[in-house]
């Protein structure tokens, strides 16, 4: 039995090594003073300095963060409302149809979503830039939030609401005091999922950026296509660390919000 566990651990380690190797390779060379990814000469922080002295790049980083936070906030609100609405649907068939329509949006290729947004924005004459990117990010995040919130809603026993109504709670009170607190973990999960999706989205953003507005992934792409400057490695490293930080943050929030009710259930 012991041996078996060891083998599976080894396998797991190998898989993770393979998955993370390219990222670490890239991170490793971001400290190379040699200027290329062929030979490692000596340790330097020069590329990081270059990243931080580039104001245009910093503006782009800030833009990316603003878009990510704002779009995930708005899409979380919309997504929660959407999930509540889907839950209200009585007929099973229409409920499934709605859910499938939601899922289609998640699995449909980003390129198609991006291209259709570009066509739409051009048609209605919206200037490409901050608002076009924000709108499209909200659009592709909403289905994700719905998908994260809905299981929590389904989990909630309808008797809880009946009991609350019985005890004289208004509809608003039921929503804010019973439903929302119950599905809170789902809301947080949805928010963080939307945040990470928005941060690393390339395909959709690529279509709808313009007029000097750009996000990090699009900028990295256009820089990488022209020669391989190691400042791209430095930037990617920073981005990776930031995303890792988000995941850790999500983990702690998840544990805090999820942990308590779980313990309470186990209790007396």
């Amino acid at each position, binding site marked *: 039995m012991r041996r078996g566990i060891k083998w599976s651990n080894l396998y797991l380690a190998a898989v993770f090594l393979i998955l993370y190797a390219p990222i670490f390779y890239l991170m490793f060379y971001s400290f190379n003073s040699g200027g290329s990814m062929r030979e490692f000469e000596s340790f330097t922080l020069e590329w990081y300095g270059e990243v931080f002295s580039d104001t245009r790049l910093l*503006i782009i980083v*800030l833009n990316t963060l*603003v878009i990510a936070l704002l779009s995930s906030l708005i899409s979380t609100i919309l997504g929660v409302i959407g999930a509540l609405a889907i839950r209200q649907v009585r007929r099973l068939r229409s409920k499934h149809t709605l859910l499938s329509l939601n899922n289609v949006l998640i699995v449909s290729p980003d390129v198609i979503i991006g291209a259709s947004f570009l066509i739409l924005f051009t048609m209605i004459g*919206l*200037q490409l830039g901050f608002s076009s990117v924000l709108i499209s990010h909200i659009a592709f995040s909403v289905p994700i939030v719905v998908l994260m919130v809905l299981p929590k809603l389904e989990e909630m026993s309808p008797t809880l609401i009946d009991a609350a109504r019985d005890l004289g709670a208004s509809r608003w009170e039921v929503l804010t005091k019973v439903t*929302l607190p119950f599905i809170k973990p789902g809301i947080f999960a949805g928010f963080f999922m939307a945040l990470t999706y928005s941060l690393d989205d390339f395909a959709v953003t690529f279509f709808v950026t313009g007029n000097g507005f750009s996000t990090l992934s699009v900028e990295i792409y256009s820089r990488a296509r022209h020669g391989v400057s190691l400042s791209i490695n430095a930037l990617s490293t920073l981005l990776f660390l930031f995303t890792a930080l988000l995941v850790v943050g999500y983990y702690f929030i998840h544990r805090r919000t999820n942990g308590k009710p779980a313990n309470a259930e186990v209790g007396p």
Partner: protein
Amino acid sequence: MKQLVRMTAAVIIITAALLYLTNWLNTSQGFRGKDTLTIYNWGDYIDPELLARFEKETGIKVIYQTFDSNEAMMTKIAQGGTSYDVSIPSEYAISKMKQEGLLLPIDHSKIPNLKYVDKRFMDLSFDHDNQYSIPYFWGTVGIVYNPEMLGGREIHKWSDLWDESLRNQILLVDGAREVIGMSLNALGYSLNDTDEGHLQEALRRLNLLTPNVKAIVGDEIKMLLAGEEAAIGVVWSGDASEIMSENEKLDYVVPKEGTNLWFDNMVIPKSATNIEGAHKFINFMLDPEVNAQNTEYVGYSTPNAKALELLPEDISGDERFYPDPEMTSKLEVYENLGPRMLSHYNELFLEFKMHRK
């Protein structure tokens, strides 16, 4: 619920702070001023020092943005909603943009430095009388090779590539006109040949090349050649100088049979908002001293005769990038063959790509 409200408030506050910071950075950098000029150029295709100098001399704030392909640039301009004042497309893109009405005519009286431009590079088929475009850089399509990997062998012409000893050694750039043009040139025909017999002959000739071709690749050709993944590459001269600066063992040759002559010209897209500033910028870039400095930075061939005189001998005398008049007479500019002929070229290229050894 409290937690949700707190979280929402936190996100809103952070976003507001970030927005304020972005705004502050933008203003402090002058990107919000009245007098700005948006330049839409290839990445790393101008000496940034010159942009700073232009800002200092004219008081116009430059916003520099980059694209990575002519097609992407054209789409962004055609699509509207953008306000680029100066762009630098390649010649085939210029003739297309001209047809689609995406360019504004250039007022030559506002560009006195135009007189420094070599007459050879003016009034070409893609833009007669330079109504819409002013030369920025030019170059050729040629062969980069690694003499060390070939055991000291030299390459002078296209037909050398068909040699049996070069099995699996050649990288080709992924462009229909470049590759078919290479074959047409090797056979002694024009790059702009539309004769079906000649084209079929060129395709048959290309198919014979397949055993020697290692891969047909895009931009990564630079990295692969510099990293010595293959000994020979068919590339644009601009890429060649970049590759050679990364790996000094490599050499570039303009094939004897003749080859393509390409241009990147400065244009004013129809979406321009600062037309006056755009003219100033074009004139500034043609100033011999400025042009020479830019040429040294970018490493492409300058069409500016006066600037060429200012350049050190090891640049201006380099026949690989400034071929002698006899060679120059064999260089041809791609003519716009029309959409039907172009798609025929693409089909032939596809047939070549699918050909099995």
